[in-house]
């Protein structure tokens, strides 16, 4: 049995639910918009969910796909939804290793600090851009002056718009909050989804520094074999069964990695449904220990 959690209005949750149902497996959907009608009890082997008239035990699950209750249709249900999500997260973390969980919460939290995640990125064999984390306006200005094109982005998992920094701008505000500056790396952009051992890559055609907030077109792409392997290795190091990895191939042929998203909104790239299908297959596959 597969458990899918999320909100019915959340495209990735809806796409995975649909793909799992099409695959013919038994699927249970915890819709956080109905959290007030769902009862949770116990922990570990004795964990139970009651949805409507139906009871089922956590031990019946073979696969779990988790999305957060961020897209609630009715914000008044936030308390119920977040309480239930916290309980489900705890059970997912405790689940037997034979249960495929996309993703276990501790692994999903590894992008809570991007520079810390970058240490794993480097260990996986990718280049990472030189950066400065600072509260010092003068140091920020010097970093920008010495590197030419520099971007500023959030340190935490909070989504921010990545933008180029103007060397003439006022840096005074950085003294109020640690701020991350990074040398801008030009090149060809790729978004790679890793699902278990499966790698699905898309090239991104965009003229914007942050393609998520501008014009962008995603087209299926092939990565060199060793780069695909590095993506799988990065996901493995972070403990992720599913990752959305941002890569850029620099003009000098170096593969830079900027981030591994641990709960990727993959549907923007998944026009042919390959990613959702790969997730459904991964959730239903029989357990095989990692070699």
């Amino acid at each position: 049995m597969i458990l899918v959690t999320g909100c019915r209005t959340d495209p990735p949750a809806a796409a995975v639910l649909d793909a799992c149902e099409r695959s013919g497996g038994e699927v249970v959907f915890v819709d956080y918009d109905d959290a007030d009608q769902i009862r949770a009890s116990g922990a570990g082997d004795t964990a139970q969910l009651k949805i409507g008239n139906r009871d089922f035990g956590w031990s019946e699950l073979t696969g779990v796909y988790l999305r957060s209750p961020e897209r609630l249709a009715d914000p008044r249900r936030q308390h119920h939804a977040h309480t239930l999500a916290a309980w489900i997260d705890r059970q997912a973390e405790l689940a037997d290793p034979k249960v495929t969980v996309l993703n276990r919460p501790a692994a999903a939290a590894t992008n809570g600090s991007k520079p810390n995640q970058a240490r794993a990125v480097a260990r996986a064999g990718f280049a990472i851009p030189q950066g400065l984390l600072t509260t010092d306006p003068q140091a920020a200005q010097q970093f920008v002056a010495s590197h030419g094109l520099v971007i500023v982005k959030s340190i935490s998992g909070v989504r921010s718009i990545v933008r180029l920094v103007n060397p003439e701008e006022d840096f005074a505000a950085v003294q109020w909050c640690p701020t991350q500056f990074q040398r801008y790396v030009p090149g060809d952009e790729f978004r790679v989804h890793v699902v278990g051992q499966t790698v699905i890559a898309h090239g991104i055609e965009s003229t914007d520094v942050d393609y998520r907030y501008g014009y962008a077109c995603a087209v299926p792409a092939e990565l060199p074999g060793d780069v695909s392997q590095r993506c799988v290795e990065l996901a493995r190091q972070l403990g992720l069964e599913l990752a959305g990895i941002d890569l850029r191939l620099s003009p000098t042929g170096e593969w830079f990695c900027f981030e591994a998203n641990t709960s990727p909104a993959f549907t923007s790239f998944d026009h042919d449904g390959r990613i959702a299908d790969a997730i459904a297959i991964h959730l239903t596959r029989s357990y095989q220990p990692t070699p």
Partner: protein
Amino acid sequence: MIVLITGHGDPAGPQLAQAILRARRSDHSSPQPHSVVILTPRDLAQPGWQLTTPGSGAGSFVAESRIHAETDIDLVVCLIGRVHPTDLTWIAPQDREYVAAESTAFLHYWLATLGDRSMLPPTAGNLAGPNLSVPQWVQLAGGEIRFAAYRSDSQRDSDREPLIDIALIDGRPLDARSYPENDHNLNVATRLYLASKVPYLRTAFTSTAELFAVSVIPPWRRAAAHPAIAAHIAATANLRSRRRWAA
């Protein structure tokens, strides 16, 4: 230099710093005295922090409103799990959530790059060490420990019961209470301590001896009453071999 990361304006920080200095003075085997500085989230809103990515170990940080070199650090003890938005009174209310998340992520990176100079390695969700639920602690200790189960549809009676608290440091109870031989709660706390490899462990039990809570953040608010905490920090700053949990 020993760096204590505490909440802004919390008097327990200076008290613990004084207790560490006292412990240092009474330890005659110590090669040289350490200074102790207190770093609070307010110091993250002061010019002077400079860390590079990839980490170089040669950055600078701010504590007690002064700029220090990373190379001067012997030990950092983080006593907060994260930076809380409500603590950031110097930040505009609408920006506090964001600044708190950024500050937490920043400290996480810094503590991780310090390696064994950080008392406990940060984990996702907790700057001060392991971030495990009670069932996960039980799993870590090999199971077979009764714990208070959670129900989403009712408040547990134990939420209203007084809890029995046991704190361990270096494997020994912190309080002066005498425990009967084979005390169940103490045995469970000791099992968890041994499995966790952390220097401090606080456990709480219900009146029916169910494990209710586990924390690795030391009872530092009671540091003045428990010199063992300060002595432990002072000794650890000198001896890297004591940092078995950092591996």
